[in-house]
């Protein structure tokens, strides 16, 4: 009697488990994200260039300008204007030297950190300059900003998985915490969107992404730059064009 009861209970448990398993299903979805800005007044976009700093291994201005132009060509409805990057550091230095003659010499070199980068931010508020650029290119949407790509090092305890075999030769994966020296890069871009008709800033967005590798791993700076930009791009693109984010969700019964 007890055995029969146990069988009944166990089959009931199996049935309940099956029902529980069948009560949800995974479904792919695409979430449309509306653009942050209304760019309907523009047909064209000018990626004007960036004030870049940090490591000398990557030309942040050149690479960011190229990358954003190619992304905008493929993923926005705007026509991308091909032109040389604007000499933004010179313009910023001119503005600074007009205001304070003593600072221009120290600001001639590429900025090394965020504090130095801030010294150049006056160029983006120069309405007359951007209005003139806007007139030159038939009043497009202008994309500009700053890109700081700096080497980074952090020593910390990290968890990794290690294979171990017991006396019977059975494999197990166990988490192991070790103190490691890690090196990598930090990418801190600031994207500024300027109305080419008025020369005023319409919108700006900042981001900060970092990547770390084992100290003995030699990863080229340029590949780290692209890996980090890949993380930042969806947010950049969602500012001016609708995007669809793919994912999966669980439907319940």
């Amino acid at each position: 009697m007890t055995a029969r009861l146990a069988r009944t209970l166990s089959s009931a448990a199996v049935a309940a488990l099956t029902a529980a398993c069948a009560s949800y299903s995974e479904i792919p979805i695409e979430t449309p994200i509306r653009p942050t800005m209304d760019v309907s007044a523009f047909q064209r976009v000018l990626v004007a260039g960036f004030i870049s700093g940090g490591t000398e291994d990557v030309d942040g201005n050149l690479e960011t300008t190229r990358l954003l132009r190619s992304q905008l060509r493929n993923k926005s409805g705007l026509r991308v204007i091909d032109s040389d990057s604007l000499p933004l550091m010179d313009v910023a230095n001119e503005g600074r030297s007009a205001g304070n003659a003593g600072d221009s010499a120290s600001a001639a070199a590429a900025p090394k950190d965020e504090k130095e980068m801030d010294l150049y931010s006056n160029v983006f508020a120069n309405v007359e300059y951007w209005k003139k650029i806007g007139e030159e290119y038939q009043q497009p949407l202008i994309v500009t900003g700053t890109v700081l790509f700096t080497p980074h090092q952090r020593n910390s305890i990290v968890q990794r998985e290690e294979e171990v075999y017991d006396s019977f030769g059975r494999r197990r994966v166990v988490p192991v915490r070790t103190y490691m020296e890690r090196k990598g890069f930090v990418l801190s871009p600031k994207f500024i969107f300027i109305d080419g008709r008025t020369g005023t800033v319409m919108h700006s967005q900042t981001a900060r992404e970092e990547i770390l590798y084992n100290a003995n791993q030699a990863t080229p700076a340029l590949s780290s730059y692209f890996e980090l930009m890949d993380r930042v791009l969806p947010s950049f693109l969602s500012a001016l064009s609708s995007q669809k984010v793919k994912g999966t969700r669980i439907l319940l019964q």
Partner: protein
Amino acid sequence: MKALAFAVLLGGLPWPAQADARGDAKEQVKFGIAVAQRGLWREAIYRWERAAQLDPTYAAAHNNLAIAYEHEGELTKARGAYEKAMELEPGNALIKQNYELFREINDRTTRKDAQ
């Protein structure tokens, strides 16, 4: 028979009525899933809204509705429906997981660092 009548009197009438509502809501939810899996999201929304009306305490209906709103880009409505589902079943890990994934996307559109 007497015992049954007593039990009904004790519990009041809502219990069987509620059971019916849940049964009807489940049918709507099931149908909604079938059509959503065929890509008919507007029909799925209609079904899950109906389910939520029939049984407002049915967390699955709100969860599914939230997913459909998310798919249609109605992010404010999606947030409301997820929050309702979480309120009804705070311990449900699947609802929580859906909500966290939703928040990750939603926060991207309302980032504080953007001006």
